Structure formats: structure tokens, C-alpha cells
């Protein structure tokens, strides 16, 4: 189900934890704890990054030469400060400048349902109306998030709202063209 937490978590997963941590390190060298705190604040959205994943990721980045570790001696246990390397910084830069692959989603599940509904003589328009209702219900939830949340919540909700709105436009266009599509499918 396309819940807010699933949606937001998909966004976070889509943006890659290692590259995000590297990006945070480019801002300034940090301890693992500070990195986790900043990650959770800006990108976690109710799904904090486990400490284990933070340190495992940092260890891999160190192994691959993307960060170096500066050990800080103290009274207690040694503290590790992570510093991004030139190689790490250029990887962050390459990631930032490269556009994401636009996914056309031409063969969506919904499209398949509509075509099959027509083939089987089922009420395609009703299915599309049901989908429209589900989309609008989700948009209402995201609008509430926007109205009650901070700027980060609002921008994340906006991302979802614009995508859902695009789907709805497709649904409207498809409803308007159902007769034509029915003729096409019947050929």
C-alpha cells in the first residue's frame, strides 16, 4: 500500500544511504553519531538509520578510499572522525550532477487493468473511478501532512502530491478516451 511512510522510505532508499552519508561528510568531517543524527533529521522521516548500518557503511566507504578515519584520543574510548577524500567528493559530485533516469511507466499495472477490463467486457470506467478515489484519498492525507507539518514534511508531501496528480491526469485522459481505446483493443 502506498502509505506515507512507505512513500517516504522509498524516496530515502532511492537516494542511496552511502552517497547521502558521503554528501553529509563533504559539508564537514563528522562523527558517526552526528552523521546519523543529521541523516535522521533530513532524510529519515520516521525511519531512523540504524547505528549498525551507519558504521558498516562508513567502514565500506573507508575501505574503498572514499573517506579516511581520524582517531581522536581522549579519556574514554577513542572517537573516530570521518573525513571525505578527494575520490569521495568527486563521487558525490558525479551523483549530484547526473539526472535520474526518467521512468516512463508506459506499461503500468493500471494500464494493464484497463486494457484487460475492456477485453473482458468489464467496467473499465468504474475501475478508473475507484483508482481516482484512492488517489484523491491519498492526496487528502498528504495535504493534511502539509498543512500540519514543517517545510521538510511539506516538500516531501508535495513530491507525492505532484506524482499522484500526474496519475490522475492520466486517469482523466484515459476515461475521456475509453471509447477510442475500446475500438483499438477490439481490432
Amino acid at each position, binding site marked *: 500500500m502506498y502509505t506515507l511512510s512507505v512513500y517516504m522510505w522509498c524516496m530515502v532508499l532511492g537516494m542511496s544511504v552511502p552517497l547521502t552519508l558521503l554528501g553529509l561528510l563533504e559539508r564537514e568531517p563528522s562523527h558517526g553519531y552526528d552523521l546519523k543524527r543529521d541523516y535522521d533529521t533530513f532524510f529519515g522521516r520516521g525511519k531512523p538509520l540504524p547505528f549498525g548500518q551507519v558504521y558498516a557503511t562508513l567502514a565500506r566507504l573507508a575501505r574503498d578510499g572514499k573517506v579516511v578515519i581520524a582517531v581522536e584520543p581522549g579519556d574514554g574510548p577513542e572517537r573516530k572522525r570521518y573525513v571525505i577524500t578527494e575520490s569521495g567528493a568527486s563521487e558525490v559530485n558525479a551523483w549530484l550532477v547526473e539526472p535520474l533516469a526518467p521512468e516512463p511507466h508506459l506499461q503500468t499495472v493500471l494500464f494493464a487493468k484497463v486494457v484487460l477490463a475492456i477485453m473482458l467486457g468489464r467496467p473499465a470506467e*468504474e475501475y478508473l*473511478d*475507484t483508482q*481516482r*478515489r484512492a*488517489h*484523491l484519498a491519498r*492526496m*487528502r492525507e*498528504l*495535504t493534511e501532512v502539509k*498543512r500540519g507539518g514543517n517545510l521538510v514534511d511539506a516538500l516531501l508531501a508535495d513530491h507525492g*502530491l505532484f506524482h*499522484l*496528480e500526474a496519475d*490522475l491526469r492520466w486517469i*482523466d485522459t484515459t476515461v*475521456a478516451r475509453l471509447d477510442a481505446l475500446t475500438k483499438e483493443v477490439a481490432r
Partner: protein
Amino acid sequence: MIEARAVTLSFGETPALRGADLRVAEGEILAVMGPSGSGKSTLLHCLAGILVPDSGEIHFAGQRVDTLDEGARSALRRDRFGFVFQFGQLVPELTAVENVALPLLLAGTRRRAAITEASAWFARLDLDGLQQRRSGELSGGQAQRVALARGLVSRPQVLFADEPTGSLDSLTGEHVMDLLVGSAREQGTTVVVVTHEARVAAYADREVIVRDGKVTSLDAEPVRS
């Protein structure tokens, strides 16, 4: 609160409504959606007593509206309903605060009291300092918020809004909707908003779709009663 029963209406030979049914509960915010020319604005005008259906019935608070004469419908619109249209439709000769005060003045409130009451809306809708401007000196978003204040100033039981953000950019439109929904909820006003924008409809409690002059939504019953 307000109901259309099997309403039909044609403009000449062209049918606009072909048996539209709709119920809106008290305090509900309802979005009426549909493609251009589907009859959604005509339905709103029938519900508001602006147009009289060829057949079918309109009821408001237990009272039949479509059988009232023009004078009674006019009084109903003035005393119980508020309106916001796509382009604000402010009176250009009047200042912003006079525009907001207009429904109160028409209802017989004394000028000083009407202006005082109208002025209170300016802070509420982020319009402070614009009271003396005329419509030509306001941005689109400001003019629409003035129109919203005018629609709500007499504390109507129902606010009818026809594409209230249709002439605004996305962010300004959201600001207007945020204020519209917030103010309506605060004073318990029922809202019927016609829109083709899903992002506007998402501010409502429920949406119905008008297609070919009929309400075709699966969600035709009010969420409140």
C-alpha cells in the same frame, strides 16, 4: 444541509444537467470535479439558487429552493450563502475593505460596523495594510483572498466557490485554499467548491465527479451528517 434531486437543465438545445443527484452535509467541504463542459458549474449555480432547474428539486435546510421566486432566492443568496469565483470579481470602484463589507451593507448592517467587521478579516487572511487598495492595485492572490473574505464575512451557512484558484499559480492557490478551508472550518461553514484541479479537491472532505450532466462519483454520500 443542501441537496439536488434529479436536476435537469438545458441551455437552449444543449443539456447541461441530465438528472444530477447530490447531498452535502452541514459543515462538509465538498469538491465537485469533472471535465470542462460536464455541468459542474451549472450544478453549483442550481444549488446556490442562481439558476432554476428545468426539472428536479433543490433543497436547502429543509426548504425547497427551486420553487422560490427570484426575490426570495436573492434574499437566500444574500443572507445564507457566500460566493467566491475564479477571478474574484471585486467591484473596481470600491476599496478592498468596502468590497469585503459589501454583503454586510447589502444585508442592512450600518456602514461603520460593516467596515469594522470587514477589517478584521484582513489580518486573518494575511491582507493587513491592503484595506484601502482598489482591485487594480492587488495581485491575483491578494484579490482572491479579498474575494474570500467577502464570501465569508457574513458568516454564511454555505460557501460556493467556483474554481477559486483557477487564475492563480500553484503556491498562491494553495495559500488561498488553506485559508478557505481553515476559515470555513472555524465558523462551521459548509463549502461546495467546483474545481478541475485534484490538488484543490484534496483540501475537501469528499469529492464527486460530474460527467455528462450527472454526478457519477462512487462516493456520493456525505461523510458527515
